[in-house]
């Protein structure tokens, strides 16, 4: 009988591509975000005047969604364009209506769970000097509803994007899934 000797975990960076899930809320529902000294979000204060004031969860098919943050420098300023892109396979009234509701929001806060189990809080800018944050008016961008053509190679699907311009890359969210009000 062979014997396998356990080896220690290597310190590989958590770098798996893609995202699993997003949670989206309208900016007006978020009253305050609390940051710690290492610029992570440690608390969220929500206005709960109506039962609907929570984050809405959207799960994705494996390897169909991404969160891209493209940085450019404009003279002395930096701009980061945050883009979330995802595919919803199959055309249905349920998904159509959910996308219509998402498109009805012109200021979104989105918590993104990537495939390395990092949580990113998109749709806000945090100024480290003043320790103030503001909403970026993140909203849906380009998208499509497409039956496609070849049943042996394609699928019918919706493609949706959510886009915003931020002062820098999205801060990390430390509360995990248990701390997301859904």
């Amino acid at each position, binding site marked *: 009988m062979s014997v396998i000797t356990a080896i220690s975990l290597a310190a590989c960076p958590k770098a798996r591509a893609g995202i699993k899930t997003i949670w989206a809320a309208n900016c007006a529902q978020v*009253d305050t975000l*609390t940051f710690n000294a290492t610029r992570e979000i440690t*608390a969220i204060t929500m*206005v*709960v005047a109506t039962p609907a004031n*929570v984050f809405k969860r959207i799960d994705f098919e494996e390897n169909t969604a991404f969160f891209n943050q493209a940085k450019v420098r404009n003279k002395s300023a930096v701009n980061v364009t945050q883009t979330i892109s995802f595919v919803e396979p199959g055309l249905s009234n349920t998904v159509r209506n959910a996308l219509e509701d998402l498109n009805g929001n012109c200021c979104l806060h989105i918590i993104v769970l990537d495939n390395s189990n990092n949580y990113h809080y998109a749709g806000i800018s945090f100024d480290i000097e003043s320790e103030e944050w503001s909403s970026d008016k993140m909203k849906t961008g380009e998208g499509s509803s497409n039956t496609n053509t070849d049943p042996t190679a394609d699928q019918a699907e919706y493609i949706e994007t959510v886009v915003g311009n931020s002062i820098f890359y999205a801060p990390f969210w430390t509360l995990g899934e248990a701390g997301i009000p859904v």
Partner: protein
Amino acid sequence: MAEVTAPVSAEQQPKGFKLLRVQDNLVTICKAGKKAAFLNHGSKDVEFPSKGNIVKPATQELLKAIYDTDESYTQLIEAPKDYKAPWQQGK
């Protein structure tokens, strides 16, 4: 018959830990120890359908547990004078 004591909100307690912001229909989700905690800033119960529960006004016990968890929670809660949280030990 068992005596039932209504919870006393942090707002109603003159001493001890205090919320920096007292307002109805405002709930903060943060951490108390390793668990997520729901902190009601008002004096009335808040229905929070997300977790299928009612969030009662904050108690002194909850405020202390949250305050002790992370230094950033000094932005939410004021501790009694001379109180030292675990994260302040040795400072």
